């Protein structure tokens, strides 16, 4: 058990280090994978909210997340195809997926106002994490100019999402 826990902590630390250290930052294939993974996670969360929530504002926000993140991911897929880059799985993507799986489990167990609050709070936190990673690591590490430009567009968009989620969170209090 101790080994298992130690292994998990080490893997998480590596993943965080992968995001936090720009000097030895991820390569473009890994960045594309991280960005795409983060987008998919938020699309899935939005779809869950559309399935569970009856709150109009929450449903509108969730629709926006599904639409915007799908659009970003379509753009990212087209770009990697054009650049002939194969997105490369990595510890950061794995950590993101693992965290999202746990969050989905928690959210799935909630209903009504409790779900709405938890979903929106998670959206605030998730977008903060993603914008932080974009600013500190992903954008500075990106080598290809088109990929960098797409990440910069993503940063503007995700900042907007974060503000929208924060505003929604205050309405749900």
């Amino acid at each position: 058990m101790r080994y298992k826990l130690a292994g998990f902590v080490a893997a998480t630390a590596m993943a965080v280090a992968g995001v936090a250290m720009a000097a030895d930052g991820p390569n473009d294939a890994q960045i594309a994978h991280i960005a795409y993974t983060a987008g998919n996670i938020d699309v899935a969360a939005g779809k869950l909210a559309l399935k569970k929530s009856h709150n109009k504002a929450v449903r509108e926000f969730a629709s926006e997340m599904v639409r915007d993140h799908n659009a970003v991911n379509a753009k990212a897929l087209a770009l990697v195809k054009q650049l002939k880059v194969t997105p490369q799985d990595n510890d950061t993507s794995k950590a993101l997926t693992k965290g999202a799986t746990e969050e989905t489990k928690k959210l799935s167990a909630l209903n009504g106002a409790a779900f709405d609050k938890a979903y929106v709070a998670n959206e605030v936190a998730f977008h903060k994490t993603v914008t932080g990673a974009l600013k500190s690591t992903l954008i500075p590490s990106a080598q290809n100019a088109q990929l960098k430009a797409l990440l910069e567009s993503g940063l503007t968009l995700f900042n907007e999402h974060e503000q929208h989620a924060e505003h929604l969170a205050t309405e749900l209090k």
Partner: protein
Amino acid sequence: MNLRRFAPLFAAAVWSLLPSAPAAAATHTYTVVVDKMKFGAMPAEVHLGDIIVWDNRDFLRHSATDKGVFDIDLPAGKTVRMRVTKAGTFPFICKYHPGMKAVLKVEK
């Protein structure tokens, strides 16, 4: 003959979308580019009856919305024509991304 004097005839109508109809004679057409989560420069001298072409070059769906006045859906990569039928100053946003803001000024 200045057709602008007929503009008030349109003023009572709602802001109208013109998916394909050409601009009426003696009106001006202005293009507003929407890209990278921003509204581009707004035309300075818009008059009643003029046409605004919203050119959404972004890969995201946006809108130009002044709640209760106009609400123009701007699908990604599309242009949408709108005839101006009301004078005044209209601060508007993208309803999907409210951080996107601009002001449309319309003279009679």
